[in-house]
């Protein structure tokens, strides 16, 4: 029995198989409409996350399975003080697979250790969010036809953004990736990541302004720069526009560059960019369902 705790749990060959399956699901949804008949997914969400939970629920429903679960800790037995270890033992009696989001880092791993069913980490604090990374990779692979040979710009809050760290760790396994980190000084990518890139000989640059590097990017991964991350209001006001993607900045970009964003978007991508064919962030949400469908089938060992 396998679980998914980190995007690195799967080899690149296993990821290729997963993405092939996701692409087949996209092309032939009817073929998979009853693949999970009689199966139950438990969504154990100790903290609210509407999009991720609905994406899992949509995935299981589209496979013909059913969904049970809770959507915040207050409505679960955690409010009575039950441990994650005990909860998963009980859930294992009720469901065939579990997607768990928890505000504590490592909670899904504790669940996986005690579980009788596959556990998917649906986000654990600031630690991992592997299905977001799988979504990002599937979107890139489907829309670009490959996962190697890119100049990848990551823009915004690179210090606290777990989706950014996770995506970097996943992309370094592919050939010929060049990273450009675009962030204010305060929100630079952590040292352990730049150390890892140096050790592995993977090229990267750190810049402050998005416009400077826009023409060179094949992929642009946007994240939100939150006001509360800055030391003072003055710096925030001075820098915030550097990290807002609008039509003018898009004019500087390659014609086939893709813009990705883990969503929710607030104001870091202007709505005028939404209709640009290079804006891939809403398609990402759709690929999120396909990749979760493929993941459920893979972990349940169901052949399509």
């Amino acid at each position, binding site marked *: 029995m396998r679980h998914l705790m980190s995007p690195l749990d799967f080899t690149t060959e296993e990821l290729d198989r997963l993405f092939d399956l996701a692409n087949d699901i996209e092309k032939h949804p009817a073929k998979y409409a009853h693949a999970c008949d009689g199966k139950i997914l438990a969504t154990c969400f100790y903290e609210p996350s509407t999009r991720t939970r609905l994406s899992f629920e949509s995935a299981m429903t589209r496979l013909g399975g059913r969904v049970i679960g809770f959507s915040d800790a207050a409505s679960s037995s955690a409010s009575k003080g039950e*441990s*994650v270890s005990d909860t998963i033992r009980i859930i294992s009696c009720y469901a065939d697979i579990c997607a768990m989001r928890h505000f*504590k*880092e490592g*909670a899904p791993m504790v669940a996986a250790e005690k579980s009788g069913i596959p556990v998917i980490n649906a986000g*654990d604090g600031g*630690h991992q969010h592997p299905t977001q990374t799988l979504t990002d990779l599937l979107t890139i692979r489907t829309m670009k036809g490959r996962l190697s040979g890119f100049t990848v710009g990551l823009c915004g809050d690179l210090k606290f953004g777990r989706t950014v760290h996770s995506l970097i760790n996943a992309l370094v396994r592919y050939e010929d990736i060049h990273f450009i980190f675009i962030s204010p000084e305060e929100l630079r990518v952590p040292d352990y990541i730049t150390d890892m890139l140096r050790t592995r000989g993977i090229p990267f640059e750190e810049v402050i302004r998005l416009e400077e590097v826009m023409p060179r990017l094949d992929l642009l991964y946007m994240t939100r720069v939150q006001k509360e991350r800055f030391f003072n209001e003055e710096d925030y006001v001075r820098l915030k526009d550097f990290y807002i993607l609008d039509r003018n900045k898009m004019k500087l970009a390659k014609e086939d560059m893709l813009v990705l964003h883990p969503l929710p978007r607030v104001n870091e991508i202007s709505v005028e960019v939404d209709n640009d064919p290079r804006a891939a962030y809403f398609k990402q949400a759709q690929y999120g369902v396909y990749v979760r469908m493929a993941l459920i089938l893979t972990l349940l060992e169901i052949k399509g």
Partner: protein
Amino acid sequence: MLNVGKIEEGYVLDHIQAGKSFALYEHLQLARLDYPVAIIKNAKSNKMGKKDILKIECDLDSIDLDVLAIIAPNITVNTIKDGEIVEKKELTLPKQIRNVIRCHNPRCITSIEQELPHVFVLADEEKKIYRCKYCEEKYSESSR
């Protein structure tokens, strides 16, 4: 000067930071074993001013000293056989350690889950970096 007799077989842990010998005694779980142990506190040291020493009379390899590589990396471990020092033992970093050091990340599941062991995994042997198995937070001396 206090005199403690020689041991025939076992280990002498020397150059322990003064006052730390009880912590080492506990980490090695010597209270559970039936070996003669001498704890010497605040002995004079040219190098350190004051130091602690632990002498353990035991069968060689009957206790796992590798945990000391994490909690007391600068001590000297002398292996004694037939009353003589036969080796200055090199400590190797264990791949995994359980309930020796604690995760101090307040966001880690170990902070709330009952009776969950604190497990650290050797992430970088060269840089001697251990990370919590659950949250991957790096262990550092200052977080103890």
